């Protein structure tokens, strides 16, 4: 079975600093990869996804993630964070089984932006 490891449970950074949230998954076979964001007291929202093609994927709010098959990683980065990026971030890997996706989530990384 797939598993996902997010290496940092909490990441504090200063506003306008760069950030990287690390994610490794267990299998090197073809997978779909996702990052979800959860703002305080809300549900999860899809931030970006890798399905195939270019290994660098971007979101509309400046985050990007790079699929690295050899290292089984899908780290999330942003060159300059804002206070509004404070949230919990979940990496997830998907298998398609019997016609449906099964997402396996990491433990989450809480990103705290300090002014």
């Amino acid at each position, binding site marked *: 079975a797939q598993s996902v490891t*997010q290496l940092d*449970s909490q990441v504090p950074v200063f506003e306008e600093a760069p950030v990287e949230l690390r994610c490794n998954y267990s299998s090197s076979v073809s997978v*779909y990869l*996702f990052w*979800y964001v959860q703002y305080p007291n*809300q*549900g*999860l*929202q*899809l931030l970006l*996804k890798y*399905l195939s093609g270019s290994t660098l994927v971007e979101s509309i709010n400046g985050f990007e993630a790079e699929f690295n098959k050899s290292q089984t990683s899908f780290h999330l980065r942003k060159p300059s964070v804002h206070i509004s990026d404070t949230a919990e971030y*979940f990496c*997830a890997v*998907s298998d*398609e089984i*019997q*016609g*449906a*996706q*099964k*997402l*396996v*989530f*990491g*433990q*989450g990384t809480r990103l705290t932006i300090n002014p």
Partner: protein
Amino acid sequence: IAGITQAPTSQILAAGRRMTLRCTQDMRHNAMYWYRQDLGLGLRLIHYSNTAGTTGKGEVPDGYSVSRANTDDFPLTLASAVPSQTSVYFCASSDRGGDGYTFGSGTRLTVV
């Protein structure tokens, strides 16, 4: 607005009581899921349904049951609640093609 509706938003429940968490989607997605979210553990799959009329067990199914009588509804039932079921419960749905999940806003359940 298309999406997933969960009810109730929050609930305090006495141990031993029965409780059904409701989940309805209007996107005609084939698959639906129930996760629980606990601090430090991320999201863990409780039960899932690939299509109406079928259900399957996830990672932590004990103490929970589900049904999928139609495409839109996927209720989660706790037959006899215990304090360890205190958690935030999220319902999600997906279609084929790798688009990921759409999540509801969650139900915060406290069992006392």
